[in-house]
């Protein structure tokens, strides 16, 4: 049996392990909730994570991986993790790499011939590509957040009013800035 066929056969097992590992990046109480709450509106993080991983694995197993589809399936889950401040960048976007260990573990002794090992290397290349894509999306999301911070409503309005000489405010310190960063 080819590597692809083997993977296809073990797909649901791989998906389950992957999902569990991603969910376990959250604190235990949260992980429990993400697993158990099935309502899509009460648990948008669990739902988006489940849907994204399912679609991404499907894409990986196709004869040709469609990079546009990969991006659109990655977006919801990366978009969420990009604003969850508990994660470092690698924790937020690195979850695709989990697949490498999972696949090696699931296939185990089936990886016994050179052909399969070669195919595995090629397959892992796809995982790398997908990971790169996840990091790109992560960066785009972070930029969007920084942009919003920079455009902060109050500053825009405040400055406009100030220029027009319309504001009489409680005086600030000389620079008008907070010491905080």
């Amino acid at each position, binding site marked *: 049996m080819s590597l692809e066929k083997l993977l296809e056969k073990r797909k649901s097992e791989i998906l389950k392990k992957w999902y569990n*590992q991603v969910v*376990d*990046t*959250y*604190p*235990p*109480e*949260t992980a429990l*909730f*993400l697993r158990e*709450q099935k*309502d*899509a*509106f*009460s*648990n*948008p*993080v669990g739902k*988006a994570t489940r849907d994204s991983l399912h679609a991404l694995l499907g894409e990986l197993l196709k004869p040709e991986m469609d990079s546009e589809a990969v991006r659109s399936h990655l977006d919801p889950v990366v*978009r*969420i993790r990009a*604003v*969850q*401040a*508990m*994660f*470092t960048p*690698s*924790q937020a976007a*690195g*979850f695709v*790499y*989990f697949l490498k260990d999972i696949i090696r573990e699931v296939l185990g002794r089936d990886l016994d011939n050179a052909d399969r090992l070669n195919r595995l290397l090629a397959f892992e290349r796809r995982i790398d590509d997908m990971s790169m894509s996840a990091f790109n999306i992560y960066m785009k*999301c972070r930029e*969007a*957040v920084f942009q*919003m*911070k*920079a*455009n*902060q*409503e*109050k*500053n825009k*309005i*405040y400055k406009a*009013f100030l220029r*027009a000489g*319309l*504001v*009489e*405010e*409680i*005086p*600030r*310190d000389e620079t008008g800035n*907070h*010491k*905080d*960063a």
Partner: protein
Amino acid sequence: MSDLPKSEEILKDVEHAPPKKGWMNIPVDIRKGMYCYAANPKSLNALGFPNVHEWNPKDEDWNLPENWQEILHKGFKERLDRFRSVKVFMDICVRCGACADKCHYFIGTGDPKNMPVLRAELLRSVYRNDFTLAGKLLGKIAGARKMDEDVLKEWWYYLFQCSECRRCSVFCPYGIDTAEITIFGRELLNLLGLNIDWIATPVANCYRTGNHLGIQPHAFKDMLDFFVEDIEDITGINVEPQFNKKGADILFITPSGDVFADPGTYTCMGYMMLFKYLKDKYGLDVTWSTYASEGGNFGFFTSHETMKRLNSKMYAEAKRLGVKWILGGECGHMWRVINQYMDTMNGPADFLEEPVNPITGTRFENAKSTKMVHISEFTADLIKHGKLDLDPSRNDDLKVTFHDSCNPARGMGMFDEPRYVIRSVCNQFYDMPRNTIRENTFCCGSGSGLNAGEDMELRMTGGLPRANAVKFVHEKHGVNMLACVCAIDRAAFPDLMSYWVPEVDVTGLTELVANALILPGEKQRETNLRGEPLPGMEE
């Protein structure tokens, strides 16, 4: 090659499975993006608050007053005597967990300390230690712990990750309202000078100048004059408002956000057009005030005294002008203060009349004591009695959904009036899923003074459950407009939508009404209030 890190070493950082420890043993980790800047001491001084000092949440040392523990203990004790509800909430939680997964901040951030039950435990653990025998004797076993600087930091961090939205209280079998616990906890923090600037400075401005941004009376008038010109360009009608008019029938008060921040400004134009219509058709005499120029009340997020101070200004102005009653604009927490607190704080407002709509004769029983009517109730009543000429087809480019703002919804019980108004002025309306609206509504993620720029990650995660439901109706029905009746929503949602559902724009209710409203003698309109071509008027 040998210098390169091994893949497991790189992945160690990635394979983050947090430790399984009790919540009390996980120290607080103050993360950038999740908190607002410390209050500007000048603002706190302007309000005469105690223990004002410079400090930074990220610093090890918060420059607390030497006897801070004593101040806190005393403050806690005083309030336990004063607020029966808080004492009850401290004692009766059975930790059943029904509230645990109902908070949008928990759902979005994934941080277990944002579970309402744990948020309340922050205070309860100290309460047990300081005020119960079991806690004193058994300590941690009884869920008690001593107040120290780390606990204080944890309080501060998580009490400012609660928008006081009350969603959790809907699910608690005992009706425990974690919002009240947060209000109480923030009041204690204020005793130590630990407010955030996004609250303290608007409060100081409001106290002194009458509104959050410190806009002076003439500037407030300048802004409305500017809207008059805009409206005249669009409709050909001059809607010149009245200011500070003694003896007017009704005083109108709205959050200043409607006057100075898009897209609230279009809602403000809507009010002006509605009042002009009612004046021309029915002789309704409405005045604006340049002194009570703020409906919002950030005092609500500070302390009971501050809330009372800011609320009293509206009634003082109503008294000064000698109006019959007050009509309130599309605000969130203004209505919570009016409905939940005003009567026992500054009420009853006996010098005003029980509100009756002079055009329809409807008596607003719910406002009998507060003498303040919500613009959506008022508009719904007018429509119900066929008093408005409306052309809903002018809103045909819109597929609208409605966000129940926490305060008018859970704090006031107003669910149907806004929907009735929208259905009357728009042909395409789609509600979001049942468990995300009405009394179950999800907060915008930026309520209770948290709509700053520096805490954008908190706002985006806290707003995720709401945005997720908007996304659903966008994908299912093509919804492209999110309507709401709250100025904080109107300030917060454009950011939230741009991150999660960029195809959806944000509007106030009265903007939709004004676009459909046919003013007597108006010219053929070509654009809506935003200057965009009306359906059928595109080039």
